[in-house]
C-alpha cells in the first residue's frame, strides 16, 4: 500500500469503485485483508476455510457497494458482512456434523497451525495456545465474536455495537462471560488431575504431533 493509498479514505475508494474503477477495490482489500482473515480464523479455527470465507467476504462487499451509505463507517460495513458469513458458515458446519453424525474432525489443530511458517513457538507456548483455542471453541458464538472483536482486534464497545447491532451493555456482558468461561476452562485444565486427561485428549485430537516432539 502506497502512501497515497493511505491518505485516501475508504469512502473515496468506494465512490471510485462505484464509478467503475474496479482496480481501486484492491486498495480496500489490502487495508482489511489481514484483519478479516484473522478474525474469521479465530472464529472457525481453520486456515483454508478462513481464506475461502475471507474471499467470499470481499466479493460480497463488492456486490453490496451499492447499499453502502458513505458515513465513514466502512469498517463496520465490512466486519458486519464478515460476521454474518462466518456465523452462517458455523451453522452450516453444525448442521453437516449433525446429519453426518461426526464431531469436529481430527487434525483440526493441524489445519489451525498452517501459518505459512511465521511466528514459530516453543512447545510449551504451542500447548498453551492449543488450550486457549480449545477454550475459545467452547464459547458460544456471540461471546467469541465479542471477545475477538474487543481483545484481538481492539475495537471499542461502540464499534462492536455498530458491527453487531448489539447494545453496549450486552457486549459488556458477553465479553465478561467469555473471559470468565475461558478462565474457568483453563483453570480446570491446569489442575493436576486433569492435566493428564487434557494431554490424552490433545493426543487424540492432534495425532500427537506436539507430544511426539516433546518426548524426543
Amino acid at each position, binding site marked *: 500500500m502506497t502512501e497515497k493509498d493511505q491518505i485516501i479514505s475508504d469512502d473515496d475508494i468506494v465512490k471510485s469503485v462505484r464509478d467503475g474503477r474496479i482496480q481501486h477495490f484492491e486498495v480496500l482489500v489490502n487495508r482489511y485483508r489481514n484483519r478479516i482473515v484473522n478474525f474469521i480464523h479465530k472464529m472457525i479455527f481453520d486456515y483454508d476455510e478462513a481464506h475461502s470465507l475471507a474471499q467470499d467476504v470481499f466479493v460480497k462487499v463488492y456486490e453490496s457497494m451499492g447499499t453502502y451509505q458513505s458515513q465513514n463507517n466502512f469498517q463496520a460495513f465490512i466486519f458486519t458482512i464478515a460476521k454474518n458469513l462466518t456465523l452462517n458458515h458455523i451453522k452450516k458446519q453444525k448442521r453437516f456434523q449433525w446429519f453426518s453424525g461426526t464431531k469436529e474432525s481430527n487434525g483440526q489443530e493441524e489445519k489451525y497451525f498452517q501459518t505459512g511458517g511465521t511466528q514459530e513457538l516453543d512447545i510449551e507456548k504451542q500447548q498453551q495456545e492449543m488450550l486457549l483455542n480449545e477454550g475459545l471453541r467452547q464459547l458460544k458464538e456471540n461471546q467469541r465474536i465479542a471477545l475477538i472483536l474487543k481483545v484481538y482486534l481492539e475495537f471499542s464497545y461502540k464499534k462492536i455495537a455498530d458491527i453487531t447491532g448489539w447494545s453496549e451493555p450486552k457486549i459488556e456482558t458477553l465479553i465478561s462471560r467469555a473471559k470468565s468461561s*475461558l*478462565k474457568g476452562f483453563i483453570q480446570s485444565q491446569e489442575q493436576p488431575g486433569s492435566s493428564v486427561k487434557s494431554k490424552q485428549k490433545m493426543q487424540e485430537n492432534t495425532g500427537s504431533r506436539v507430544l511426539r516432539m516433546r518426548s524426543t
Partner: protein
Amino acid sequence: MSKQNAVHTNTKSMCTDQTVHALLNRYQDNELDSGPRERVHAHLQTCKACREELSQLERITLAVKELRSIEPAPSFNALLMDRIKQKQKAKSRWFAIRPVMSSMAYSLIFLLFLGLGLLINGFFVPSGQSNHEDLAFTQLLDESQQLSLLQVQDQTFDLLGDFNRQNGSGH
C-alpha cells in the same frame, strides 16, 4: 463488613464494594470515562480481591491478544480480483441481454392476461356449445321457472276461494 455489600470472588478474600466490582471488566477493557475510572483505580489500591480478579482478567486478555496471527496466502489478492472481474463480466453480459429478456417477459405477461380475458368472456368453451345457445337456454329456464311459480300462485288462490265459499255456505 456487611454481607449485602460483599461479593465473593474466592473463599479467602471478598470485595467490599459491589458497585465498583461490577466496573472491573469495563475498566480492564478501557471503556470507562475518567470519573468512574479514577474511582476504580482508587478502589484497587485497597481491595486485594479486585486486584486479583483484575490480574486474572489481564492474563486472559493478554493470552487472547497474543494468539498467533496468520498471513494471508500470497495469491489471495490475485484470486480475489479474478473472481471480481468474472462477476463484472457476467454482470455486463446480463445488462446487454436485459432489454431483450424484459421485452420477452412483458410479452408473455400480456399474452397470459389476454388469454385469461378471452377465457372468462367465453371465447374458449371446452364442450363445443356456443355461448349464445347457453344464454338462450338459461333465459328459457328462468322463464319456465317463473311460469311455474305463477301457476302455483293461481292454483293456491283458487283453492283458497273454494275453501272460503264452502265455509261461508256452511254457516
